[in-house]
């Protein structure tokens, strides 16, 4: 093997009492793809942020082509050929694609931006790697997948030779993810070196040459892809065997929530087209579909943040109008939103504040218009203990939690009071194996206790493991339900592609 392009030597980083990286060493060769695995909060993002100069390490050094990189200087890292695609994209939605890519690439004090040359270069790169974009488009108008493409292009535009991708597939659909990995492999063939972070063992096994596992800030294993297995990796990550829980048969109770031919229009576009379903107590109804087919509208409708245009909603058999958020919370509906950073928590506020926010006016948390801090703190502490939220105390700012731990906090906030209905949108997105198992166990426990769970997901395995019945959502339409016993990956895959429509509505068939 040739000399490595990147060497990380004994890097350590501490946040307060929390040792996020503990003496980690790692090398990367030209044209190699390394996957970085680890539980939520294991320190993966921290390590990559140090490499990129966002964070300053407490100890250790980073060498690129044998030359040491000055710590804490993104500019130096960029110049040395390091590019990073962030877990939370760092793009400006109001600026154009080209502007996003060009920022900081020219001498700051020059009289003119070389816009047309930059456009040419960008198009050439996008051609070479098969990443199609429109340089003039406003970034905020692009889909998540396209935005990610811009992030990658941004790195390539800076002539990156080492590309770091932090959970690139967490927000992508399966098809987009497959395309992404094809692109990454092509990049590696062209001599780029890549490190990617992922929780999805399938894609790690399929795409990586080598796999590095972190746990609790320490590096616990290095494996080549050919000499390991999914089961071994899962065990290495969590430090014990993990098995996802499975659903036990049960008899559901009365119908808790029913939708009859509900249509939702946003800005004149029908996001939900006359959908019908019913959800019973003690069952999990899975809504499967490729993201962007109306899931967001459905979740928002049931969370009280969106009004329907027509159709009926029945809550425990009673017709309801367009409920507001307060009504929804009051009726005992728990909600796990799809985008936890945007809708789930307020990052700048403390964990305890987020824990009680939804029910701040409840007598447990406030009296005479005054917030009862102590009760809030105690409640947050309970959630932290019961739901194994790691990386923060009730008083620390929520933004500092890793994605998985944030999700556990939201889950805890909702499940703690045994909701009668739970709307869970992509509840396991971005979570590690251990956390996925924990979340699934909680959902099943809620089901056992009689909660009616609506599980909106694009993960086939998840839906097959948890749901009693499954309906597919395609282009705002909902398929008729199939019993879990009759569902398998093939059948659900066909449903997600809209196959059921042909038989039911011949006029819509192609």
């Amino acid at each position, binding site marked *: 093997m040739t000399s490595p392009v990147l060497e990380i030597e004994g890097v350590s980083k501490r946040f307060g009492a929390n040792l996020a990286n503990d003496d980690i060493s790692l090398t990367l060769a030209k044209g190699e793809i390394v996957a970085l695995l680890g539980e939520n909060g294991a320190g993966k993002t921290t390590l990559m942020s140090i490499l990129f100069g966002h964070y300053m390490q407490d100890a250790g050094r980073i060498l690129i082509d044998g030359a040491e990189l000055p710590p804490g200087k993104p500019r130096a890292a960029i110049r040395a050929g390091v590019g990073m695609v962030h877990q939370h994209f760092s793009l400006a939605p109001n600026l154009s694609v080209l502007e996003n890519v060009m920022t*900081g690439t*020219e001498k700051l004090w020059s009289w003119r931006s070389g816009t047309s040359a930059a456009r040419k270069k960008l198009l050439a790169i996008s051609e070479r790697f098969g990443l199609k974009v429109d340089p003039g488009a406003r970034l905020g108008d692009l889909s998540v997948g396209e935005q990610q493409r811009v992030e990658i292009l941004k790195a390539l535009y800076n002539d990156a030779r080492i590309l770091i991708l932090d959970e690139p597939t967490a927000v992508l659909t399966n098809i987009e993810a497959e395309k992404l990995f094809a692109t990454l492999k092509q990049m590696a063939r062209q001599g780029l070196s890549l490190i990617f972070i992922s929780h999805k063992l399938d894609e790690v096994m399929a795409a990586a040459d080598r796999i590095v596992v972190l746990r609790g800030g320490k590096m616990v294993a290095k494996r080549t892809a050919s000499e390991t297995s999914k089961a071994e990796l899962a065990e290495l990550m969590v430090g014990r065997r993990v098995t996802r829980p499975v659903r036990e048969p049960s008899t559901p109770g009365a119908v808790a929530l029913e939708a009859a031919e509900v249509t939702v229009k946003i800005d004149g576009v029908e996001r939900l087209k006359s959908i019908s379903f019913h959800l019973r107590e003690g069952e999990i109804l899975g809504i499967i579909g490729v993201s962007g087919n109306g899931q967001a509208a459905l979740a928002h409708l049931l969370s009280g943040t969106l009004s329907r245009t027509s159709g009926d909603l029945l809550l425990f058999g009673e017709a309801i109008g367009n409920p507001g958020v307060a009504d929804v919370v009051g009726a005992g509906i728990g909600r796990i939103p799809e985008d936890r950073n945007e809708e789930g928590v307020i990052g700048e506020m403390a964990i305890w504040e987020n824990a009680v926010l939804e029910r701040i006016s409840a007598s447990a948390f406030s009296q005479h218009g005054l917030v009862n801090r102590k009760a809030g703190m105690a409640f947050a502490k309970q959630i932290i203990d019961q739901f194994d939220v790691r990386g923060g105390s009730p008083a620390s700012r929520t933004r*500092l939690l890793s994605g998985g731990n944030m999700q556990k906090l939201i889950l805890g906030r909702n499940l703690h009071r045994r909701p009668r209905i739970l709307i869970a949108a992509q509840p396991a997105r971005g979570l590690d194996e251990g956390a996925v198992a924990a979340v699934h166990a909680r959902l099943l426990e809620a089901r056992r206790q009689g909660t009616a769970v609506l599980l909106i997901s694009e993960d086939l395995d998840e839906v097959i493991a948890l749901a009693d019945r499954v309906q597919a959502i395609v282009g705002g339409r909902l398929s008729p339900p199939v019993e879990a016993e009759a569902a398998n990956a093939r059948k659900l895959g066909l449903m997600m592609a809209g196959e059921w429509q042909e038989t039911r509505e011949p006029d819509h068939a192609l």
Partner: protein
Amino acid sequence: MTVLFDIIASVGLWGAVLRIATPLIFGTLGALLCERAGVLNLGIEGIMTFGAMIGWLSVYHGADLWTGLLIAAIAGGVFGLLHSGLTVTLGLSQHVAGLGVTLFASSFSYYVFRLIVPTAGTPPTIVPFQPIAIPGLSTLPFIGPAFFTQTAPTYLAILIALTLAYILFRTPLGLAIRMTGENPHAAEAQGVNPMKVRYGAVIAGSALMGMGGAFLTLSAFNSFFPTMVQGRGWICIALVVFASWRPGRALFGALLFAFFDAFQLRLQTAVDGVPYQIFLMTPYVLSIVALAVMARRARVPQALMQPYRRGER
């Protein structure tokens, strides 16, 4: 009705529009620059007051007019430094820091003013900027005397508006400023230091505010009195929103407001039987209406008023 037409057709009105607009143009551009980098600068009202005072004082003590304007700009920049220290380095609330700067700068101006003019009598006057007739253009009928016979700072203000538009949208520096106002983390990830950009933008923006204030004492009028800024700073803050954070539209907005103002001034004398306060109110009412219409489509810099802390997500 003919009264209205007479007013609109008068050269005096249009000459006044540019004169009234000039401090607003300076101030609005200054506030706009700060906000494009993500910092709301409510220090503007005080900074304009201080600029008016220090510009006048310098000239009164023998500096020439341009030096006075420069000193006002530097003084504005110093207050900008203070504001960025509070909001960028310390990450304090931009509202509170800005109001603090305004209170401090206004009182400080008054204090210095009273040191120089201890008694209540009329403050000493200076010889202000004189109108410059632009050769060739000033002789045009109507347009000439209205638009091309202004004082030098007015031409400068228009020039600065065009320059700022060019810098923001055509140069790498401008892109860095806009990116910092939209997403400082992204700017940082691209090797731009958002802290430095914010400092620079706030200091330069505050310097413009200082110049806007100085225009009042060095050109529009020939003396200083402590209440002379009269809420112009706040108008500028509103004009930035009206302009959707674009220098060209800021120029237009300032002219529009100035037009309303000049118009109502003349109406006051031309129309009997209506309390003059009604007329006084109209430019503000119209501004609110215009703001309500325009602001709905405005694209606010996404990171406006968000402190940037390094090494945090």
